[in-house]
């Protein structure tokens, strides 16, 4: 009987042997010697060859655009003019001395953290509730994920219409409930514009969290809960000592992913408020868009996007650090 290990060893040992000389080929002992070690090395590690196309593709579709963007950030490239020149750090200097850039960072952090926290909380509650449902879980899950399935432009305009100060249903309901005395321009007032778009984003994003967390919940063995109940644990104790530890990795991955997506989100904010009023909702992507696609100032926009990448790397690094500490604990 031949085991897999035997076969693999045979393949390896066969490839270690020198290749037989081609019939009729003149002997050239010195000319082919230099690359023989490489070929032998590749013979032993064919998997490297298999990985090369993937790596090349990755470099082409990720590294090239990123590199091109970084290159642009050092030029005065403008789409309205045919030539561009190397300007060194001038774009970065201009961006870093623009107060609007730092305000945009602050707003982006507020937008990202409050949105992700709200989505996580609502998604978690939804997942716990849905797990307890014994009948019709499928249709319920489908119904709750509907917001995720709509195009953002449809959602943005629907919310804009619902929040309209004159014909919007939100004002009507709040006035009937006695929560407000007169219609509020939710998207047109400095103090309410950001909370309004965050609320909209939480509504949009929580189903994704909910479905992912529900899947995570279903991987926690039921026996853990049964043992805990035998020991007299209540709901909150189960939540703290079984559910949350069991979901730790899912939550970590979700928070990192959603943070990146929300941080880079452009369409919701732009379609509902255009970054206004008075820049109250101007996040970094909107700020970059205004520079690059309304003024065609690609060089400066590239500098902003490199700075965005820096901020995002810091956020993700902090998350990963926290998760690693949590894992070590």
């Amino acid at each position, binding site marked *: 009987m031949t085991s897999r290990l035997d076969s693999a060893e045979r393949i390896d040992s066969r490839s270690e042997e020198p290749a037989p000389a081609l019939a009729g080929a003149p002997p050239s002992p010195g000319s082919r010697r230099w690359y023989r070690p490489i070929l032998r090395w590749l013979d032993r590690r064919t998997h490297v060859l298999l990985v090369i196309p993937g790596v090349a593709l990755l470099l082409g579709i990720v590294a090239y655009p990123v590199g091109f963007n970084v290159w642009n950030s050092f030029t005065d490239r403008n789409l309205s003019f045919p030539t561009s020149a190397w300007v060194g750090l001038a774009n970065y200097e201009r961006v870093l001395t623009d107060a609007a850039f730092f305000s945009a960072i602050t707003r982006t952090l507020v937008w990202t953290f409050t949105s992700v926290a709200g989505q996580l909380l609502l998604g978690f509650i939804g997942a716990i509730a849905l797990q307890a449902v014994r009948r019709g879980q499928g249709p319920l899950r489908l119904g709750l994920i509907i917001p995720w399935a709509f195009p953002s432009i449809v959602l943005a305009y629907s919310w*804009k219409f619902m929040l309209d*100060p004159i014909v919007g249903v939100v004002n009507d309901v709040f006035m009937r409930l006695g929560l407000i005395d007169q219609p509020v321009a939710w998207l047109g007032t400095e103090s309410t514009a950001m909370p309004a778009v965050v609320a909209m984003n939480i509504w949009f994003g929580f189903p994704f969290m909910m479905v992912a967390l529900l899947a995570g919940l279903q991987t926690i063995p039921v026996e853990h809960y049964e043992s805990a109940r035998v020991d007299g644990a209540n709901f909150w104790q189960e939540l703290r000592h079984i559910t949350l530890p069991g979901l730790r990795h899912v939550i970590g991955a979700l928070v990192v992913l959603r943070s990146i997506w929300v941080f880079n989100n452009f369409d919701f904010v*732009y379609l509902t408020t255009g970054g206004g009023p008075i820049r109250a909702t101007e996040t970094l992507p909107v700020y970059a868009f205004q520079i690059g696609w309304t003024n065609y100032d690609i060089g400066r926009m590239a500098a902003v996007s490199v700075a965005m990448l820096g901020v995002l790397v810091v956020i993700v690094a902090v998350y990963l650090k926290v998760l690693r500490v949590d894992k070590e604990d």
Partner: protein
Amino acid sequence: MSTPANKPLSMSRRGFMRGVLGTAAGTGMLGALSACGDDGGSSSSSGEGDSGRLVFWHNYTQEARVNFMREVADRFEESHPGTTVEIEVVPFPQFPTKWPAAQTAGNLPDVTTVLPEHAVSMWQAGALHPMDPVLEELGGSSAFVPGLLDKAAAYEDQHILLPHYVHNRLLAHRTDILADAGVSLPERPTWDEVLTAAQATTKEPDQFGWMLKLSAADTGGGYLLWMLTHSAGGRFFDADGTAMLDTPEVKRATEFLVEIGHTASGPGQVNYNINDNFSLINAGTTVLAEVSGAEIGIAAVDAPDIADKLATTFMPTDVRPGNLIGAVSLALPKGKNPTLAQEFAAFLYAEENYVPFLHTIPLFMFPALASANSPEFFAEPTIAKYEATAQQTLAGVEEGSPPGFEDGPNPYTGPVFNSHAIEQMLQNILVGGADVDSALATANQTVQATLDDISSRLG
């Protein structure tokens, strides 16, 4: 025992290379066979295959205009055997981001509709051929409405575009609501008359005299202030690229707009944009609105009851009417078929194509060609019904200019309006409580920085 099902995968470096080389050779042969079978039709993207392929971008999204353009393209194909016209609808909001990407990829269309301010940017970037051969084919400058080419098309001693159709901004009003409030507007109302009418018809919380549209996501606020500034005899910047937002004319226009904003407009004014006009008028939320004939024409089809209650006047007059021309134009990007593109552009102005196209949505489009200002054009029922609106539009086209083009096309207009400095300034005053002087001073600095950027590039 090893079976075929669980036999371990064994591949050597030589086997892998043989596989890769075999696949490459197979793909190459398939490609060669495919090329041999290609009939050189419209799907080809290079070389001989492009000789009869013409790509046309237009911004006409409505079904009637889309269908009509396809019919024109079909007729062109019939009259030019072997030619294929590929049409792509590119709405104007997408256009500023689409053409630079197409230029970078070497995929510019052969013919496109374009706004004058975008055409200047394209010209600066070396993306356009001049339209002079087409103009010559049409009979020279006299073929167009007098003065129109100087105001919208002539730049650096060339015609970089030709207007396809024109319209003028007017002030629409709901006659029923105005009558209920006991006010009326003459055909050329003054600022005071408009302010009085707007205030008299404001009934909060759901009816406003003149709901402003000052979103920073479009240029509606900038255009409105420009019209009022133009009416006051001022301008936003001069021909040398000096910002003029700190002049008395701009200040007076801003104060007028702020007065409207505080006393006759409503909450949400900083979120509305130009596209909200129709629903605001239709719902009776706004009594006055700056429109082109387009809104009346669309209302005549979609909401005839409302259309019956609409009338127009010129934009408010201070020392002159605040006319603003819209000139949707044709240009020739550096595509793959420049000669065919010239023929197609001229074909769009042909008698059998031009006036019928303007009639696809009556009152939306007015003739840029002088010869089309004819009884045939005005005989269309909707245009005949709203004859006053049509005449005001034609008068406005003669008197006015595109925004920022007081001295003709220039490289400053697009970036200044696109910077949204005006909308930000008006939001600062109306929502942020800033005073007019300081808000104008800040906006002036922003606009000057934009102008300086461009001037430095131009040398």
